[in-house]
Every structure is written in structure tokens, then in C-alpha cells.
């Protein structure tokens, strides 16, 4: 009853958001002075007839409403236009790179959440200890230190000076064939970027976890759990954590966008073959269709992550289902 209507509400919200994003995406690129055809035409000096045909081809001769509808339909079908630079469909470019980005983002998220949670819990349980202070410090630093700079430093230190890690790429060239070796190779390449991301991110999670735990630990039911004779560990990880997780889930979902952009920036530093590098190149080459496509895909990911977080929240907190 309650759960279903809650889910329905969240899904509708997500759909509306996606729609607005698509509209924004469309509008922004139409706001551009000039249009892509004229850019090409200037560069290549086409005849009027060729220019007209190009307009037809790209559908740019139709009224704006028709263009919009066509855009929406195409986007929903997964077609994002052709990249100016690679001449291939943008969706193809994106699909090649998306798994790498997901790998990096996924690993970093999981690691930083786990580390952040544990650090936050311990920091709350032992106020004033070294862990407490470092949790707070890293929390602050995560907001102030640019992740791409940290990536540069790590690269400098561990890649150039110590030569422990490779300097670029997702895999070595040539990549090993055997799946186990390939996986190890990718992980070796992934270490530094993941390290940069986790260092920046875990502090924020630790702070939230810490604050939430501190709040929860003052609640009466925690004192009562102790009174019941439950050991401190179980009190922390079962009774307190379940309640402290709730604000955590909200924060994780809000921070996903932040994490994703951090990953994109880090990718450029390490030449990780993912969406981040794609953005860097697209900006340099003014490849607008690529930028449009990337923006859309990234938004999809963020909205999806938020939706998943909302659903997890509903599972965790029984109170919310009965609103």
C-alpha cells in the first residue's frame, strides 16, 4: 500500500526530471549562435545546394517544435547524433567508454562508502580520538582539495618518482589476453585514480556517518539497548547503524553527482578511457553532439542513482512507507 505509492511517486519524479533534462539539453544547444551546419559550411565552403541538403539531413529545416519532438524520440531510442570529431554515432563512442567509467565510479563509490562508514562509526564511538580528528579533517579536505590535482600529485609521486604504477591508460599496450591477467592489469591501472577519488570522498561520508551516529547514540533506545545487556559492538552496528544509515542514504544519493564529476575529472588526468577523457577531448575539439550525448547519459546515471537510493531508503525506514 504505502510502499507502492511511494515508489510510484519517486519514479514519476525521476521521469519528470529526465524530461526536463532532455529539454534543457535540446534548448541549450539550439541557443548557440550559429548552428553546426553553418560552422561546417564555413570551413569547407559548400555550395548552397549542399548546404540545403545538409539542413534537410539533420532535420534543421523543420520548425523548432518538430525538431524537439524528433530529438526526444531519438534520444529515447538511444540515438544522440554523430560526433563531429570521430564521425561515429555518439552513442557508440559513449558505449565504448561507459563501462570503464562505471568501473571506476563503482569501485570508488563502494570503497569510499565503506571506509567512510567505518571511520564515521568509530569516530562517533570514540569522540576526540585520532580517528575522530582525522575523520573531521578529511571531511573538510574533501571539500577543498580539487580531485584532479590530487590525481596529478599521486601520478607524480607514485607513477613518475617511484614508478610503482603506470602513467596512463586503462590497460597496458598491448593488453594481456588472458582474462585474469587482463583483470589484474586493469586493476593495476585503476589503483591511482581510485585512490585519488576515495581520499577525496570518504571524508564526506565519514562526517555524515559520524554526525548521524552521534545523534543516534544519544537516543533513548540506545541507552535501553545497553540496559538490556547488549554488547557495545552490537549496539553500534545493529541498533545504531540501522538508524544512522537513513541520513547516510540520502547523502550518498545526493553525493553521487559529485562523485561522478570527480571521476570524470580524474579520468582526464590518468587518460583513463572513459567518459571523462571523452569530455576533455570533446571540449578541445568543440564536438557539440558528443557533449550533448555525454550530458544526457550522465544525467541518466545520476537520476537513476537517486532513484535507487530512494528505494533503498524506503526499505530501510519503515516509517516512510506510511506517509
Amino acid at each position, binding site marked *: 500500500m504505502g510502499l507502492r505509492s511511494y515508489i510510484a511517486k519517486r519514479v514519476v519524479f525521476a521521469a519528470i526530471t529526465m524530461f526536463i533534462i532532455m529539454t534543457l539539453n535540446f534548448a541549450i544547444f539550439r541557443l548557440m549562435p550559429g548552428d553546426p551546419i553553418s560552422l561546417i559550411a564555413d570551413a569547407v565552403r559548400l555550395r548552397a545546394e549542399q548546404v540545403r541538403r545538409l539542413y534537410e539531413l539533420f532535420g534543421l529545416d523543420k520548425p523548432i517544435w518538430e525538431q524537439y519532438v524528433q530529438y526526444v524520440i531519438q534520444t529515447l531510442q538511444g540515438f544522440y547524433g554523430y560526433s563531429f570529431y570521430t564521425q561515429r554515432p555518439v552513442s557508440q563512442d559513449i558505449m565504448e567508454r561507459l563501462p570503464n567509467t562505471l568501473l571506476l565510479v563503482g569501485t570508488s563509490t563502494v570503497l569510499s562508502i565503506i571506509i567512510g562508514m567505518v571511520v564515521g562509526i568509530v569516530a562517533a564511538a570514540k569522540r576526540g580520538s585520532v580517528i575522530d580528528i582525522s575523520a573531521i579533517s578529511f571531511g573538510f579536505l574533501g571539500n577543498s582539495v*580539487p580531485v584532479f590535482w590530487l590525481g596529478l600529485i599521486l601520478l607524480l609521486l607514485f607513477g*613518475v618518482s617511484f614508478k610503482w604504477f603506470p602513467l596512463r591508460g586503462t590497460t597496458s599496450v598491448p593488453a594481456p589476453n588472458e582474462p585474469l591477467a587482463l583483470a589484474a592489469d586493469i586493476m593495476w591501472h585503476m589503483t591511482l585514480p581510485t585512490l585519488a577519488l576515495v581520499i577525496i570522498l570518504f571524508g564526506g561520508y565519514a562526517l555524515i556517518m559520524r554526525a548521524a551516529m552521534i545523534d543516534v547514540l544519544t537516543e533513548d533506545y540506545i541507552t535501553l539497548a545497553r540496559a538490556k545487556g547488549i554488547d557495545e559492538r552490537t549496539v553500534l552496528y545493529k541498533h545504531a547503524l540501522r538508524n544512522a544509515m537513513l541520513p547516510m542514504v540520502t547523502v550518498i544519493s545526493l553525493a553521487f553527482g559529485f562523485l561522478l564529476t570527480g571521476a570524470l*575529472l580524474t579520468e582526464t588526468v590518468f587518460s583513463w578511457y572513459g567518459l571523462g577523457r571523452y569530455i576533455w577531448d570533446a571540449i578541445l575539439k568543440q564536438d557539440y553532439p558528443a557533449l550533448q550525448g555525454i*550530458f544526457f547519459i*550522465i544525467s541518466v546515471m545520476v*537520476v537513476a542513482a537517486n532513484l535507487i537510493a530512494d528505494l533503498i531508503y524506503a526499505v530501510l525506514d519503515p516509517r516512510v512507507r506510511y506517509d
Partner: protein
Amino acid sequence: MGMAGLIILLIFALMAISAPFLTPYDPQYTMQLASFRAKPEWLDPTLPRNIFIISDPGFASSGSLSDWTIEVDGPSTVSWSDKEGYLGIPLVEKGSGAGSIQIASSTSKSSSVIAMEKTFTYRYSPPKRFSVHIAYKAIVEGNATWGVQVQLRQADRVVLTFWNSSQRSGSVDWSVPRPEIDTNDASLRFRLFGDILADATKVFPAQGDYALIILVRTETGDGTVKVYLDDVSARIWAEAFGYLGTDNYGRDIFTQLIYGSRISMIIGTFSAFIAVLLGLLVGLTSGYLGGWLDEFLMRTNDILLTIPGLPLLIVLTAVIGPSVWSVIILIGLLGWMGIARLIRSQVLSLKSKVFVEASRASGAGTWHIIRKHLIPNVMTMAYTQLALTVPGAIVTEAALSFLGLGDPFLQTWGKMLHDVQYYGAVTEWWWAIPPGICIASLSMAFVLIGYALDDIFNPKLRKR
């Protein structure tokens, strides 16, 4: 904690204000102060510094002749002239004005060789670049020829001829274009050393005494010739420059760092200001008026929160075109959502308290009392949020510049990091590390101040 933040902030503010005093260079436009990617001076004392061999290249006074050792072989005279002088090329190059060296050969049927030498001692490791500037003019009357050569005598007595005008007849006004005598010129390197990949290390391979020689040959038939020389300068380019070296265009990195503080603080505070202003407006309206407006505003708020910020910024900046103001406004436009929520909840809780009180007071005074009570309470939160939003703005600007979307005419710290990445200068840690440290420190300062403000204004939250 807040004290530490204030101190750091003060340091940066001082840096920003006294920037012109700390470094004499304009960070954007003063290029080619030294070789590209020069190292910091303290890193390696053996690396060459900028050496300007001639102290008075414009020959502004007659005394400047004394710098040179002049040998005249033949019936010619060398004197200082204040009538002729290289005036430069309009809009391209400044001339040195009146004052030049005059070499006059008036005796007919004679030939002369005039050698002007400037010796100097070179004490560094071999440099990568060496360039010479010279402007000449010749007035020929009748039958006469002239020629100018630029040479360098190395420490081991070998003489390299860098440039030869070859014997010419006929007058020529101040040489336009100027001869390019620069080891950066591949053809020169090939001509001198037979190797395109050589550089000035072959010109000054060892420490010792070197001499710059300007050779003028004249031959008079039944005419006279006067050769004028001006703007004679020779330069050994530094491989070590300044506190932090130079970037890919020869700009001083230390200068960029110092000036970057101005821009970062301006962008950070302005963007945060816009965000807080918007947040205040939306939060106040939403919380106070309630109803469908509240619902609508908060829904918009949530939707905008979900849209990933940096990608949207990237797309917008790529389309609008990067410039300082677009960056400031866009960051501000995308940063008000969290603040609006906070302000709104504050307003809601205040509303229930104050409203009751106010309604007891005279009915007409309700608005005023609410304004008087609401606004000050909300303002404290606004100040705290202002401080806490600045770091995000600074880092976002850095990220945008890093990607190449910042104002191309502004060397912000983020742009410096972009250069590091773009030119593959990861190994140059003096270039890569400082901008990041500055970004982090300045942001930390605001974070510390923000939390200190939070402590001051919300002491009840501490009691746990």
C-alpha cells in the same frame, strides 16, 4: 579553528592586494621571460640565468661605445651618432630612438674591416637558446659596398658566424624585417652545426670567456659608405627563472600563482554571493508564503539538485563561451538549492514562533515585526552559508578551468593545472603542486571560517 581560517584568508588577501608589488610581471601577457618550461632558480644553480650581454643596446649616449672593444683595420672611422637611430616598426617593435654607431668609410679605393667586440664570461651550464638582435642602415654614395656580420668567439677560440648580410652595394634604410638570429631557428642550427636538433648548448658548451663580434666590411670604389648600427643586443636565455620557473609560453609561474589569488577570491566570493542571494530569495518566499508557490519552488529545487552540476556547467560554458562573468553567474545559478532549503526550514520554524507573538501585537504591525524578526535570524544562517559555499565555488571554477572552459585570458589556478595537464608537465612538480595547494588552502580557510561562524551562531547544536 576559525582563527586559523581567518589567518589563512588574510594571507591570501594580502597576496592578492600586493600582487603587483610581489612580482613585476603581468601574468597573462608577459611572455618569454625565459626559455619555455624554465626551472625555478633555486632548483639548480648551474642552470643559466637570463644574460643580456650588451648593457646599452640602444646606444643612447656616446659613452656606450666604451663598452665595446673596437678594432679598425683600414681608413674608416667609428663614432657615435646622435642623428641616426633605429625608430622601430610601428605597432610591432619599439625602436631605441636617436643614438647609433656610425661607421664611415670616406676614403676612396680602400677597404676596411671594423670589428666591434664585447667580451663576457659565461659561468653556467650550457644554455638552450641564444639570440641576437641587430638593426643596421647603410648610406652609399657612388661606388661602394658594405657588409655586416654577427659572430661569436667561443672560449676555445673558435669563431662562429651567426649571420652575414653579404657584401652589398646600395643604400638600405633601417633593416626591415630584422634579421632573425636565434638558435630557435632550425636553419641557423643546421647551418652552424649541421644538425637540426642542436641548440645553444653547442654555442656555449663550456664555461669561459666568450666574445660577441660585429664585423663590418667596407670597400669603396669612388664612393663613400656610411653604415649605422643600432639596437644591438644579445641574450642567453635562462633555463632557470624566478621562484617557480616558467610555463609553456615562458610566463612566470610564480606571478600566475600570486595573481591567481585575486581571481579565485573574486570568483569564489561573487559566485557564492549570487548563490546565497538566490537561496535567500527562494527560501524566504517559499517558507513565508507557503502554499502552491512553496510546493512549486521546492519541486524545482529538488529537480535542479538532481541535475549533475558540473556536466551542466560544462555544457553551458561550452555553448555560451567561456568568460569570467559567465563562469561566476553560472556557478551561482547552480549553487543556491541547498541554501534555499536551509533558509526555508529556518523560516518555517521562526514563522510559528514569531507569528504568534506578532499577531498579539497590533495587526498592522505584523508585517514589519515579522520582517524585523525573520530577516536578522535568517541572516546569520546566510553568512555561515556564504562562507561555506565559497570553497565549492572555488573548486568548481578550478575544475572548469582545468577542463579548458575557463576564461582563456585569465590565468587562474585551475588554468595553470590545465596547462600542466595539457602540456604533459607532470614531472615539473614546482608547477603542478603549488596551484593545488593554493586552491586547497584558500578553500580550507573559508571552510574553517564557515564552521566557526556556525559554532558562534548555533551554540545549541554543540551541546551533545
